[in-house]
């Protein structure tokens, strides 16, 4: 247990001294998760809307499949992406393996089901009366859709927060396709993994505490944004 206390002190030390390597990996974790989430949001809010607002054969199945994909193991995605972008494969020429771009690709795949599914849930939560009123007042299809999305913005933002949380906390994917390269693809989570296996428990705990602080800070900011809407 003293290790946890020592780890806490070490975390304070690293933060106060603005330790460059820790700042670098913290920044990288944040940047990668933010990028992946933003890309996934741009893709999945429209996708979720499309699925929600249209009836088509297999809609139920697609929604079920999306929800099943919430819990896909990150190493599985990592393996999948690895095989696709390894130089031995057709997409290999892009030279993406062991770069931050590979981690972003993987994380987008990771959070897309979550964002899509929760967007659908969010939109389902909006009263039918909203769309009927809009249409009766002369809104076209696009305007009515935009209105419902706006009504559901609180829950949609919650979906993005969820996705961000999943992205910033994953290890398996970053390790496999990023390679945990110091100064290039090392993130807080992969660093924790490495330091623990090297026996540097104090440092690993310190990094863990920093990660939690980061995640909390982001959540607080996003929550403020959410609540300003009310």
């Amino acid at each position, binding site marked *: 247990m003293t290790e946890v206390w020592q780890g806490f002190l070490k975390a304070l030390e690293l933060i106060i001294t603005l330790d460059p390597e820790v700042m670098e990996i913290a920044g990288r974790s944040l*940047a990668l998760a*933010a*990028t992946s*989430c*933003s*890309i996934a*949001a*741009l893709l999945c809010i429209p996708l979720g809307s499309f699925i929600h607002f249209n009836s088509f054969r297999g809609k139920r199945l697609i929604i079920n499949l999306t929800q099943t994909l919430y819990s896909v193991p990150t190493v599985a995605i990592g393996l999948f992406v690895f095989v696709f972008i*390894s*130089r*031995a494969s057709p997409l*290999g*020429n*892009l*030279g*993406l*393996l*062991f*770069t*931050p*771009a590979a981690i*972003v690709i993987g994380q987008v795949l990771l959070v897309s089901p979550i964002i899509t599914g929760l967007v659908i849930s969010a939109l389902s939560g909006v009263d039918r009366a909203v769309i009927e009123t809009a249409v009766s007042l002369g809104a076209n299809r696009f305007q009515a859709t935009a209105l419902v999305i*706006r009504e559901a*913005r609180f829950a949609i*933002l919650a979906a993005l927060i969820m996705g961000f949380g999943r992205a910033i906390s994953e290890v398996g994917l970053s390790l496999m396709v990023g*390679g*945990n*390269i*110091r*100064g*290039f693809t090392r993130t807080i989570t992969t660093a924790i993994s*490495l330091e623990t*296996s*090297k*026996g540097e428990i104090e440092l690993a705990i310190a990094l863990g505490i920093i990660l939690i602080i980061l995640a909390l800070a982001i959540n607080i900011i996003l929550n403020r*944004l959410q609540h*300003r*809407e009310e």
Partner: protein
Amino acid sequence: MKKGIFLLTSVIISLSLVLGIAGCAGTTSAGDEPMPPKQRLRVATTTSLYDTGLWGYLEPMFEEKYGVEVDVLYAGTGIALEYGMRGDVDVITVHSKAREETFVSEGYGIERVPFAYNYFLIVGPAGDPAGIKGMTPEDAVKKLYEMGSASFISRGDDSGTHSKEKAIWKAAGYDYEAVRGAGEWYVEAGRGMGPTLLMTSEKQGYTLTDMGTFLSYQGEASLVPIVDKGGILLNVYSVIAGNPEVNPKVKGEMAGNMVSFLTSPEVQELIGKYGVKEYGMQLFTPCAGAEPAS
């Protein structure tokens, strides 16, 4: 309005990050950018060369000398060879002679160039519960198998060290699959050398390790040398540059530079001196191009 700002901010962040990431993806341009990104050389290394800190020591020297970024991937020999075959890395530094020779003969590597060596040894708790101190490696493992009580922690990851361990079992007359199923005393760690030493120390068992990693982990792992005599224990590290003819994306020229770098007289001397001050003995003995006969 607030949502709009948030969306705008995230779009700006994403765009700048995507551009930044694209710049780091390691493509060398033909001079159409004002400042071309540095070339990246990827090296997959056996864990023992990494856990000793040798790569951390040599990497900045190479980067400065050749003006490239070196990406060192921590891998076991097995996965390093796999990366090499796929062309995902440009150079590998490993220690499994038979597999290296196959790698080169199949065309994936240009040439197997030994550059350093040390010895494996079996380490264990100071009290030596299995009573195998001073035996030959083959006799020691035989006793461990027959006793079936003292833990033996295997790398279990197809690494160079793991290959040597399997060779010792074979030399002692055992079928490896039988050893794997022999009982709970045989533990497959599935991790690098440093982490395996820590696990062995935790369990107060025995393991096969290279001298370099053992010395650098002496402060953290409470283990002592138990079996260190035997020709089979020779451990030769080689560097192999990838073959651009088989994997066109491999940076053949810079990979060749890495080979020259590791076998150059200055670096060979540095390798020989590495760790001597701290540990009182050599972690690696340089042997540019010519490996000792076991």
